[in-house]
């Protein structure tokens, strides 16, 4: 219960600020609708929001899953040898440096208006944080541990030594770093999906926002925005929780600068 109060207070403060702006500046409804109008839109259009929210959620989830797989693969590839790293790393960096907006139309052209292009977009945007975080984690393994593993396997290991090294040593050691990458990925994955929907789609929250905007239904647009934010928060919490469960040994302090109270 206590953990729910703080976010609710934050939300309440935000709503109060919003209402204050409405009361003090009195902007026209097509610039900034009141919280009440948006709440009404949320309730009245819940069917529509649920349908398009579901589409976006599915795109994000599939993109996150696929992007994570690709990112893990790329990170392992980067860590196999310095030679491979020299060839692959520029590709990984370029994939992130190219603005998603610039290639979104291309992806829609290639993969169509359906879900595939949005999944590809989400995938592309989360691929980088996952790859870099995991590659970094793999590279930071205590050299003493590697020396120990080398002595343990020297001269008498069966085939697949590198694979077992990854499973028993490198992988678990890099799991907290992968967790950091996944948290970033969970937070940015909606960008990819929504940008994709913006460029060309048959459904989804991005598409809904675009259409609501075109028809000056700003309250519906805000409602879709709120659903998207809630979706992103939920996704982040889920990933955060999963990684905490997976890496209990790596649990640090949430507020390291906080002084202990006497």
């Amino acid at each position: 219960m206590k953990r729910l109060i703080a976010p609710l207070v934050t939300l309440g403060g935000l709503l109060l600020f919003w209402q204050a702006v409405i009361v003090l500046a009195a902007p026209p409804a097509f610039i900034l609708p009141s919280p009440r109008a948006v709440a009404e839109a949320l309730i009245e259009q819940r069917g529509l929001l649920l349908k398009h929210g579901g589409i976006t959620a599915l795109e994000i989830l599939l993109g996150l899953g696929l992007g994570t797989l690709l990112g893990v693969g790329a990170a392992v590839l980067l860590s196999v040898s310095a030679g491979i790293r020299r060839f692959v790393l520029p590709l990984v960096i370029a994939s992130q440096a190219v603005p998603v907006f610039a290639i979104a139309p291309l992806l829609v052209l290639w993969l169509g208006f359906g879900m595939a292009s949005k999944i590809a977009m989400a995938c592309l945007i989360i691929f980088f944080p996952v790859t870099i975080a995991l590659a970094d984690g793999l590279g930071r393994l205590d050299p003493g541990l590697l020396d120990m593993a080398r002595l343990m396997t020297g001269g008498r290991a069966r085939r697949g030594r590198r694979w077992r090294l990854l499973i028993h040593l490198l992988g678990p050691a890099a799991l907290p770093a992968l967790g950091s990458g996944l948290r970033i990925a969970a937070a940015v994955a909606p960008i990819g999906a929504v940008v994709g929907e913006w460029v060309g789609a048959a459904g989804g929250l991005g598409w809904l926002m675009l259409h609501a905007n075109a028809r000056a239904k700003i309250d519906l647009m805000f409602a879709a925005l709120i659903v998207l934010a809630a979706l992103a928060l939920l996704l982040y919490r889920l990933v955060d929780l999963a990684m905490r469960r997976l890496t209990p040994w790596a649990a640090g302090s949430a507020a390291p600068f906080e002084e202990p109270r006497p």
Partner: protein
Amino acid sequence: MIDSVAPAAAGASPPPLKAPGVTVRGAGLRYDRRCHFEALDFDLRPGETTCLLGPSGVGKSSLLRLIAGLGQPGLSGLVTASDRQPLAGRLALMAQQDHLLPWASVLDNVMLGDRLRGVAPEPARAQDLLQRMGLAAAAGLRPRALSGGMRQRVALARTLYEGSPVILMDEPFSALDAVTRHRLQGEAAAWLAGRTVLLVTHDPLEALRLGHRLLVLAGQPAQLRELAVPPAAVPRPAGDPLLAAAQDRLLAALAAEAAP
């Protein structure tokens, strides 16, 4: 955690197959344009424990790395086994840091070697080793829940689990309290019997209790000097008056070497 678990019969671990001697020729360490030591020759006799003493930073751990075949910038030298077979795969190292895996239980940490080699681990043997270390109740815990001394004993159990005929140890008992250290030193002699061991230590008494031979590495550049050990068989009782006299001589030698 109580350390009063009765140790199992000493020497319960299978004796290693014919431990080879180790020959080191022309060992040198140059780092930052400084010559720590060069052209050192020494042997580890088969089946004996050689203790290596010397001031901090003189290069004892580097010597250990050289024998283990772990490269390090500026470290050079030729290491061979007396039976002319490669040393790789017959050698276990217990480093100064315990290198326990934080995500694995104590038992899994002990059996890590088998997992990495892709052979079936032997939990019964690992449990037995842990019990002899007084850690039977800690087998399921993660290293984080252990004290420094317990962690060091887990690392010791992991090293012995490897069953290697050649063992290199870097201050294996340094984090233990006096009572546990005394007890484990006594038992270590039985575990290490028949193996070729190089034991780096800062504790003259430990070296005199466990060492068949005693080497001191000191000076600039450092030289190796062999000191006489008391004639009794290892582990020598700490109360032996000969040990006290030898410790006096050893401390005097170390102090003389340390003087600028």
